């Protein structure tokens, strides 16, 4: 064992009727991100740099729900959050309520390294961003036409959409969509629920683990709503043993402190990475639907989900590589 390993995700919970071209688009993006991470690992960049680099790429691409392409709040604006954790000393950084910071994960890293705190939110976070000289843009930059359409749909359905990437084909909106698929997540038909929080976990050649997660949150969320992604122990966690990034129903992930759980069962029950991932997915989620990716200091990579699919990719130094949706 040993050697580097990397995994990326673009969200858990996928509509079984997701058009093939969307699946292919997602897989291409995941592959591209994996390649970026792999190059970085081959250049001996430490895990913490690699996760940031990869998540920046995911934020910049409008396909998934983070950075550009983020889900919209009930006000039609974007509020982003992210967290990053370095397993070596369990240093961490998190941000919430960002509206003009181009790459939330990088701001989270700056919170970790350049502030006396671990977590900054809203106007305080934006102020910090300005002082740090990070790239800032107008809120409009993050808003895509797809998401404007989705928000309208969500309001019509008067419910929260976790994320929804299916282009509106018919005129019946949510009603028609609901009839198409019997699967549900968070009380919504799967076709109107497709969360696409992004994340990356890495273990480098030295066995150091790191994790990062970034998101725009729930479609039609209340302004000021914070989900699991910026919460250390819930959406993101890294220790000496492993790095974990989660996605899915935020409430379920928070209540089960899902990311921390993987490391805790490894530490306290002596399970290996795969056993730990299986265990937490099977036993910790109850009614909740979620997925996660994880790496261990031994160079293993694992993913688990109890949803109908998860956009993911993983690779190890030994040559294993896989990108999947189901």
């Amino acid at each position, binding site marked *: 064992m040993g050697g580097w390993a990397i995994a990326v995700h673009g969200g858990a919970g996928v509509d079984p009727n997701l058009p093939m071209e969307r699946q292919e688009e997602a897989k291409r993006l995941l592959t591209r991100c994996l390649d970026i991470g792999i190059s970085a690992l081959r250049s001996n960049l430490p895990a913490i740099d690699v996760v940031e680099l990869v998540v920046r790429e995911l934020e910049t691409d409008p396909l998934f729900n983070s950075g550009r392409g983020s889900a919209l709040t009930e006000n039609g604006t974007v509020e982003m959050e992210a967290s990053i954790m370095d397993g070596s000393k369990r240093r961490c950084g998190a941000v919430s309520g960002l509206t003009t910071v181009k790459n939330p994960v990088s701001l989270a890293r700056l919170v970790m390294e350049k502030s006396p705190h671990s977590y900054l939110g809203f106007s305080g976070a934006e102020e910090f961003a300005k002082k740090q000289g990070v790239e800032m843009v107008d809120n409009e930059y993050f808003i895509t036409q797809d998401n404007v359409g989705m928000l309208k749909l969500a309001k019509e359905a008067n419910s929260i959409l976790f994320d929804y990437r299916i282009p509106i084909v018919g005129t019946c909106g949510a009603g028609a969509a609901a009839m198409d698929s019997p699967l549900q997540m968070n009380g919504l038909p799967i076709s109107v629920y497709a969360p696409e929080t992004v994340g990356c976990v890495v273990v480098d050649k030295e066995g150091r683990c790191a994790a990062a997660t970034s998101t725009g949150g729930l479609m039609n969320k*209340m302004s000021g709503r914070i*989900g699991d992604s910026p919460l250390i122990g*819930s959406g993101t966690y890294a220790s000496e043993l492993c790095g974990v990034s989660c996605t899915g129903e935020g409430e379920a992930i928070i209540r089960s402190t899902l990311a921390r759980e993987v490391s805790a069962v490894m530490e306290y029950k002596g399970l290996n990475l795969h056993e730990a991932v299986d265990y937490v997915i099977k036993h910790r989620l109850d009614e909740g639907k979620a997925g996660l990716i994880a790496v261990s200091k031994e160079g293993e990579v694992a993913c688990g989900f109890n949803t109908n699919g998860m956009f993911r990719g993983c690779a190890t130094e030994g040559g294993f590589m896989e990108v999947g949706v189901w």
Partner: protein
Amino acid sequence: MGWAIAIHGGAGDIPLSLPPEKRLPREAGLRRCLEVGIAALKARNHPLDVVELVVRELENHPNFNAGKGSVLTTSGTVEMEASIMDGKTMKCGAVSGVSTVVNAISLARLVMEKTPHIYLAFDGAEAFAREQGLETVEMSHFITPENIERLKQAQEADRVQIDYTQPIQKETPKDAAVADGDSQIGTVGCVAVDNEGNLATATSTGGLVNKMVGRIGDTPVIGAGTYANHLCAVSATGRGEAIIRGTVARDVAAVMEFKGISLKEAAAYVIDRVPPGTAGLITVSSTGEITMPFNTTGMFRACATEDGYSEIAIWDSPSK
């Protein structure tokens, strides 16, 4: 087995030489809040109601760092945060960046019960509070002369009190912190269990003196400052950044479960693993045990059980 309750008013570098005028009001506050909790448990209120009630009392008390009496941000403002969790259902609620809501813990409860979300912050939290008709006041209501003084001292010392994990600011003599005596106070909390084993926890704070505007600590982060499940309920206090990294509240329950050890052993184990001088916690188990370990100089705390035991303490005591 019967009911049990524990409360805290913050762990930190509370000097043994704390003068009576600073110590007595806090002891009296703890005593009163404990009595409120005991009465509520005797009246068979659900632990979730009990912890909210007690934390509201602690928030209203001006000598603790929560609600009125909250420490100030670097801009001289108040940004409060709180969280609450029910051990049986594991439903939870949290708020941050609250500046006008008289009782942040009640807002956290409303987030839990009246929204599909767990955590609301800043403007969104304030707007929700108004929608819900919660009592709001001018921010000046929360600001006390002591805290204005604390902020001034911290800014003169040019460092964030109670907490920094990176040495980015210049070192200052330890005396600067001790001079004020009670500058290292953070957070209030309450954990309770009824005689059916229902558990609940609530934590509330003004945060760190001189914190950056927008800084969020461990208090509203489920698993860090607050956690409850079927085994135990936990409320932590101390250096937020260390508590977050150490997922302190969650770990107590995790260690009990995975290592099969007692509440007391689990809590001690977790406190041992955070850097010295950074944390304390109170916790009760489903079977009515209580433990309140800390690795700081002191922790304002109190507890009581149905069989008549009660305790109020600040520094080390020989009891549980």
